């Protein structure tokens, strides 16, 4: 029988029902990284869905892997869900702001889950579409100027990135 970390199950249970939390926890890989290490590199391939179980992550954008910190990801937050759906590369670099524990569900393992356990896959997809939908909703309001871009220096950028990642810039 698989042994799963209760903290991981608890983090997942914030998002899905207990049975699905236990199922997913047993299929996600745990990764511990030290402060300063890169969790996701900008431009890298999308290969999984992530859940931050412990610690905090910083989000960077900009040239050469990102030099501008635009947000923080807090404990209990899913991230990487856009790439999980469309398989496109990340444009941001996610770096550990403290020692962190991150759980990863590999896309290939998820594809297997779709075939073998569609009930749990459906539960997870419902949550992820809600997470994505909330982010779209939060950022669709009042972000565009006449040209269709976010006005630099308008003060909205940090707040919006904070909303994007469930934290604060």
């Amino acid at each position, binding site marked *: 029988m698989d042994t799963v970390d209760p903290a991981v199950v608890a983090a997942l249970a914030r998002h899905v029902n207990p049975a699905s939390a236990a199922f997913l926890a047993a299929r996600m890989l745990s990764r511990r990284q030290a402060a300063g290490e890169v969790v996701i590199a900008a431009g890298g391939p999308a290969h999984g869905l992530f859940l931050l179980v412990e610690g905090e992550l910083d989000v960077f*954008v900009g*040239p050469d892997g990102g030099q501008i910190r635009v947000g923080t990801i807090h404990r209990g937050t899913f991230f990487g869900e856009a790439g999980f759906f469309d398989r*496109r590369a*990340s*444009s941001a670099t996610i770096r550990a702001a403290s020692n962190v524990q991150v759980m990863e569900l590999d896309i290939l393992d998820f594809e297997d889950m779709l075939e073998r356990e569609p009930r749990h896959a*459906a539960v997870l997809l419902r949550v992820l579409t809600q997470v994505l939908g909330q982010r779209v909703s939060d950022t669709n309001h009042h972000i*565009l100027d006449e040209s269709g*871009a976010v006005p630099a220096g308008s003060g909205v950028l940090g707040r919006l990135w904070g909303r994007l990642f469930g934290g604060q810039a």
Partner: protein
Amino acid sequence: MTDSLARRLGRTEAFEVLPEAVLPALAAALVEQRLPKGGLLFKDGAPANHDIGLYVVLEGTVAVRVPRLGGGYIEARQVDAGELVGLLGLISPSARRHANVIALTDTVVAHMPRGAFLALYEGHDRLSVAFLRVVGNQLARDLRRVDAALQTAATGKRPDTGLV
């Protein structure tokens, strides 16, 4: 009529991934609606109610106009035949509409009320998974558009890739 709608759904980008056998049941849950050019499909700020849900554009094109800083609206995107609009109304029961959606041409849409969606997918996990992947892909596309604008503002350069 339902068979005809089922065939049309099967030809849309949104639903072509679904098994043909489920399309009649899906079509039965949808309500066809016609809009003249300039007609308002839904309005920014409209509250959630039992009818909130998404729309499949079957014919024509609609514009999604979001509020802009300083007042007024700006056209964020156009949605053509075969695509979905109003996704947030389906997946978030407390959502308010966040844009005005207006027909740019004479348009035919099919409305899927949230309750009908939930009833249709209850107990049909594979169907649910297939449709949720369609929804997730479109939401990811929408979010990347916003992300590109944010990165442009942050760096002065438009990025080549999308969000994490």
